[in-house]
């Protein structure tokens, strides 16, 4: 295949289809930084700019302008040219005037646009992006894709791997579809690909925009049925919390969850959602206010009892892995009856133990890691689930599987608090949704309205 100058190629494929490997190959990093066997020929005219998924793992320098200049220094640009180009590149990504800020003071969305600015600064002939919006909130993702649209209009050649097709679809001149075996399935304009391979894309679990789904006859999702009158599980009043020497990140939050009830918490990065989640399951002690989990303050409960009552899914799957194999990780801390549920559950999560059990949790894809981190929680069957981004990195098939398991748990009387950027999940869960901003939680509304 060829990508012409000024073209935008969108790469789609189910999880594990080699999309990221394709990006590394284009960036010239395969064989050099990543060991493996590389066959075939690849020619790229001129330098390549690369943006990866995790904003925090690609910023090198302490301050914004130094970070943009880093790539220019590496290419030996003269100082005067750098001094002119750095503010220009920052303006191109909407960060004009922030040059002397520390990169750690930027929001996730700003950090990712900074990474884009750093990749753009040396005027690459080709820009390659590997799921650049995966870690961003909806507004941050939209702002990022808007910048990409402006670059495309200005004639930049772009290769984009992206799960959030609703946003990326309109940018694509052509689409490359990779199959689960890493082989190309189709290549062509969006209309031609949908016409030729639409059904195959859906069967492979690849997300498509809602209007394409409708045109292909995919039935719209049925929202979950709201539950009324369950026994109260969780009751929080006037919750406030601040980390040491910092301003409070949670201020005066009230919320209650009953058995079978689902509550989605949405809102921008840094609004205090994860901190609230940690307060609800007793990982943090509130500075003010009270939490009652089945009548007790969760931070005072012994670990074993806490784990029986409530589970917490951390945002970053890797940060909660404590064992060296998938099987040991899924079964960590489980007892006899809970362990017995594991094989069937792993099958339902598309991580059959026969195939995945002996692997290292770190060797899994992001979406597989997410499902593994859910396995132990779901096998234990606690009364309350507090899940931070439970659907991260899921394709259509694994998303469906996950949703079915969560609904089955809800029908069995479990309460669910889902902290998420996934607007689709908010709608599919049904129930209520509440927006968090600046540490405060707004009054919950019906989920359909929030999604």
């Amino acid at each position, binding site marked *: 295949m060829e990508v012409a100058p000024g073209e935008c190629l969108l790469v789609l494929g189910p999880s594990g289809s080699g999309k990221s490997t394709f990006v590394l190959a284009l*960036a010239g*990093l395969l064989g*050099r*930084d*990543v060991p493996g066997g590389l066959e075939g020929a690849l020619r790229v005219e001129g*330098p*390549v700019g*690369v943006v*990866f998924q995790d904003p*925090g*793992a*690609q910023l*090198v*320098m*302490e*301050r914004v*302008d*130094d970070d943009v*200049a*880093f*790539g*220019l*220094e*590496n*290419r*030996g640009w*003269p*100082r005067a040219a*750098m001094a002119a180009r750095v503010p220009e590149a920052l303006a191109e990504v909407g960060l004009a005037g922030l040059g002397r800020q*520390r990169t*750690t003071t930027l929001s996730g969305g700003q950090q990712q646009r900074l*990474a884009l600015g*750093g*990749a753009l600064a040396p005027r690459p002939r080709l820009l390659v992006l590997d799921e650049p919006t995966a870690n961003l909130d909806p507004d941050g993702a939209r702002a990022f894709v808007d910048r990409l649209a402006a670059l495309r209009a200005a004639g930049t050649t772009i290769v984009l791997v992206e799960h959030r097709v609703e946003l990326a679809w309109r940018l694509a001149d052509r689409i490359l579809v990779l199959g689960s075996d890493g082989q190309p399935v189709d290549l062509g304009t969006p209309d031609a690909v949908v016409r030729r391979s639409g059904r195959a894309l859906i069967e492979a679990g690849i997300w498509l925009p809602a209007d394409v789904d409708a045109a292909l006859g995919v039935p719209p999702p049925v929202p979950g049925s709201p539950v009324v009158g369950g026994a109260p599980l969780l009751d929080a009043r006037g919750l406030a919390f601040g980390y*040491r*020497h910092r301003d409070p990140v949670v201020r005066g939050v009230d919320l209650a969850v009953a058995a079978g009830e689902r509550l989605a918490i949405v809102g921008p990065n840094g609004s205090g959602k994860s901190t609230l989640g*940690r307060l609800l*399951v007793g*990982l943090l002690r509130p500075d003010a206010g009270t939490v009652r989990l089945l009548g007790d303050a969760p931070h005072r409960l*012994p*670990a*074993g009892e*806490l*784990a*029986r009552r409530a589970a*917490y899914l*951390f945002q*970053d799957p*890797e*940060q*909660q*892995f*404590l*064992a*060296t194999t998938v099987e040991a990780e899924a079964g*960590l*801390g489980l007892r006899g009856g809970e362990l017995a549920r594991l094989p069937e559950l792993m099958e339902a999560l598309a991580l059959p133990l026969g195939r995945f059990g002996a692997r290292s949790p*770190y060797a899994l894809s992001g979406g597989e890691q997410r499902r593994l981190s859910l396995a*132990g929680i779901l096998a*234990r069957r606690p009364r309350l689930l507090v899940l931070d981004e439970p659907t991260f990195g899921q394709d259509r098939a694994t998303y469906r599987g996950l949703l079915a398991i969560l609904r089955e748990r809800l029908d069995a009387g479990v309460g669910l608090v889902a902290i998420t950027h996934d607007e689709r999940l908010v709608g599919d869960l049904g129930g209520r949704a509440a927006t968090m901003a600046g540490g405060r939680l707004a009054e919950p509304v019906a989920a359909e309205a929030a999604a």
Partner: protein
Amino acid sequence: MIVLPELDVRQLASPMGRASPLTKLAVGLAWLAGLVATTDPRPTVVLLVAGVAAATGLGRVPVGRFARAWLPFVVAAGGVVLVNTVFGAANADAAARVILEGGPLRVTEPALATGLVLGLRILAIAGVGVAFAQTTEATALADALVQQARLPDRFAYGALAAYQAVPRLSLDLVTLREARRTRGLGRGWSAGLLLALLVLALRHAERLALAMDARGFDAGIPRSRFRPVRRRREDALIAALGAAALAVAILAAR
């Protein structure tokens, strides 16, 4: 959580902030050599006062900020004074003058003197360190190491990137311990926890190295410099004042 010191604009624009980190390092090392070499309290006091003055005067470090950074060392110094005074070998000397006696406790004047000198020395050494840390940005240090001390880029900027990952590492540890608790495993430590922390650190380093190489780092082209480090008037000033303080300290010695 570990938080790296964030310097404000006044600290960075001060004579100490503008001087090359290597100049400050050279002066600081000369002072440290002097402090370690002597057991005389007078030069120690001279350098202690000079260090605090350099930070708060020449470095415009707010006094409260300096005190907060210094506090752990003050506590440590207090402990050293106490231990050496109470358990000092000189307390066994029958000829020494006794200050305090009661039960098994016998505190003599030479033991107290030794304790105080050791405590002062810790305060002075810590003062030098705080003066350096509160006026030096990590990036400036890396720039100076590469451009003035001719250290390899890969080492200096790799170390800079690693240094910035320290807060992330401490966050990883907090989260892993929380994860243990949510799995019903209690708050304790385990080999698995430390292994997981090591794996996270390695994976983060791997990703960062990939991102650096994707931006052409270490590609064999000579790097240019966005922030050239030049010798400035402030370097001469800091070096001269540093040498003067050291001279006064030596003259003050018996």
